[in-house]
């Protein structure tokens, strides 16, 4: 990726990032984060991770951020209440975060200058390459994510339902997932469920 484009994207990401933490309205925060995520997706593509870049935009922005928006609307949350308070926390928090960034910077500066590999496999970053990794080296991990999502769903339902409401758990999608534990549950489906 040409450095100029990187610089632009980087600056944009940082500004949007600050937007996430500075905007008073939570909805604006979500939108700012979505911008960061899209920006990152583009950066991923610039790093030869094309598939991941798209997944980033689809899954993160399309699913997770929407979920956040739903919840904000559901709870009808307005602007941040105690904006002016906790100056000490803000001060020290910012200083500490800056210190952390500085430390990372120091590390990165001192990192050995290994030349990055310029000639990558032809399919680097493609769906096929990603899938091959997932279903061989990371087969177990992949299966675990299905259980992880399952646990998340169970937990989310248990917590989010009304206190006195009768337990309604079984949904067709879920039951399918349960019935095939060892098989591959495709993750977009999983995301949809969690959403």
């Amino acid at each position, binding site marked *: 990726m040409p450095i100029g484009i990187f610089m632009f994207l980087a600056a944009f990401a940082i500004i949007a990032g600050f937007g996430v933490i500075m905007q008073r309205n939570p909805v604006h925060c979500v939108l700012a984060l979505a911008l960061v995520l899209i920006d990152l997706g583009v950066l991923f593509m610039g790093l030869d991770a094309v598939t991941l870049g798209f997944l980033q935009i689809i899954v993160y922005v399309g699913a997770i951020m929407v979920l956040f928006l739903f919840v904000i609307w559901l709870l009808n949350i307005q602007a941040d209440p105690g904006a002016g308070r906790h100056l000490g926390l803000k001060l020290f928090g910012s200083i500490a975060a800056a210190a952390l960034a500085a430390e990372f910077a120091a590390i990165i500066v001192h990192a050995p200058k290994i030349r990055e590999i310029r000639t990558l496999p032809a399919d680097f970053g493609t769906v096929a390459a990603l899938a*091959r990794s997932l279903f061989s080296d*990371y*087969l177990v*991990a992949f299966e675990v994510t299905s259980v992880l999502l399952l646990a998340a769903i169970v937990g989310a339902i248990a917590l989010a339902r009304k206190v006195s409401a009768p*337990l309604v758990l079984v949904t067709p999608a879920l039951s399918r997932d349960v019935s095939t534990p060892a098989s591959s549950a495709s993750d977009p489906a999983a995301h949809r469920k969690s959403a």
Partner: protein
Amino acid sequence: MNQFTLAAVNFAWLPILPLIAVTLGAMVIMLVGPGIDDEDSAGLGLIALMTVLAAFVLTLFTLGENTLSFGGALALDDYSGFFELVILVATAVTIGMSLDYVADERIAGAEYYSLILFAALGMMLMATAGDLIIIFLGLETMSIAVYALVGFLRRDPRSSEAALKYFLLGAFSTGFLLYGIALVYGATGTIRLDPVRAAVATDMASNPLLLMGLGMMLIGFGFKVAAVPFHMWTPDAYEGAPTPVTAFMAVGVKVAAFAGFLRIFLVHLGPVSAQWSAVLWVLAVLTMSVGNLIALVQSNIKRMLAYSAIAHAGYIILGMAAASSHQAGGAILYYLLGYSFTTLGAFAVVIALERAGEARDRISDFRGLARTHPGLAAAMAIFMLSLAGVPPLAGFVGKFYLFSAALNAGLVWLVIIAALNSAISVYYYTRVIVEMYAREGNEIDVKRIGARPALLLSIVAGVAGTVLIGIFPQPYMGASASAFAAAAGRPALKTTAMLR
């Protein structure tokens, strides 16, 4: 290379049967659960118990195996077997003490038990993990299940507050852990643990990325094992959570976190132990001291036990700081074993005192217990003494083993600090005993323990473990040492099959 063959992946199915069993059990509960009233959830609990039992038996069969399967993603050896067994026992005891509790508190049983099992699965994965991503995923599976479990007392605002705090900080911490994994990956070029060890054994001692990476991982694991200053969530989460979940956190989560922590640091980052043992030295001092100091002034037993758990994490970290001692690994494993039984037992007693909707979790609630319920009081006294490190109970022998390892590594001052800390800890442990025995107190009506066989069994298991492991430490020490040796002794690159 456009295609891959499954045959190229080493599927060693047998050793992962326990994991599969637990998963299946969780799902069965999830499926049959909805038809069952919250008051009658004990049946579900029994299913969970059976599942754990089955997994336990299956784990026993896997002992003696020493293989890397799934391309090195899972390391199935005595180390993982040891931890799986401990985790399963902890899970079983947790379930045992949940049966009545869950029914009494009208907690949704299906979700509860399945989450417990999911969490157990995550824990077992952490113990079994052969690469960083499995550890990460195991950790998250466990954590997400436990986040939810902490908030299960829906009517109690403290419960959801605890869940939220735990969750926020946990997610926050996940970022650090993940950053650490990323940096280690960047430095070593792999996330498989054995190659990581091979890589760091060469010339990595001063690689900035590696150092920062292991620093961040230290922080991430430090959070999970509740090391000071990453411990802040612990007391709140412990206090707010349903008590069986607290027990589960104090034992299961901690043991699992240490399983991963130890495997990564002691075994696979062992070659660069000089780069991290100093940090652990400081962490150990802070953790022991702060844990004990604050525990001293607690009036809530769950909170006190939370700080005590922090302090005990400090002792274990002390053992880790003694990485150069050959005994350290075995000592920590042994310590965790004893700690598990003792802590589970203690929480079981706390549960025995509780009644639906009324948490008897203040230390003063134990007042006069020895008169009204001598058995319960005696059990609690044994647990407290063991935690305080009074021989011949498990807590003492564990401490003994740990201290001796640390001295072996030349950490004299650290051990002295630990000894002073132990002396402080005696105060608050004995305070419980004093409340029970020496003070005349409120005659509390405890639901008859005989009517709650699972709970009774949990307490008995705790007592038996605490006493037996202490008086006849020989087999358990042997098991601990050989379990650790199994993880540490595997040739660094005996991975059977790797793609590419």
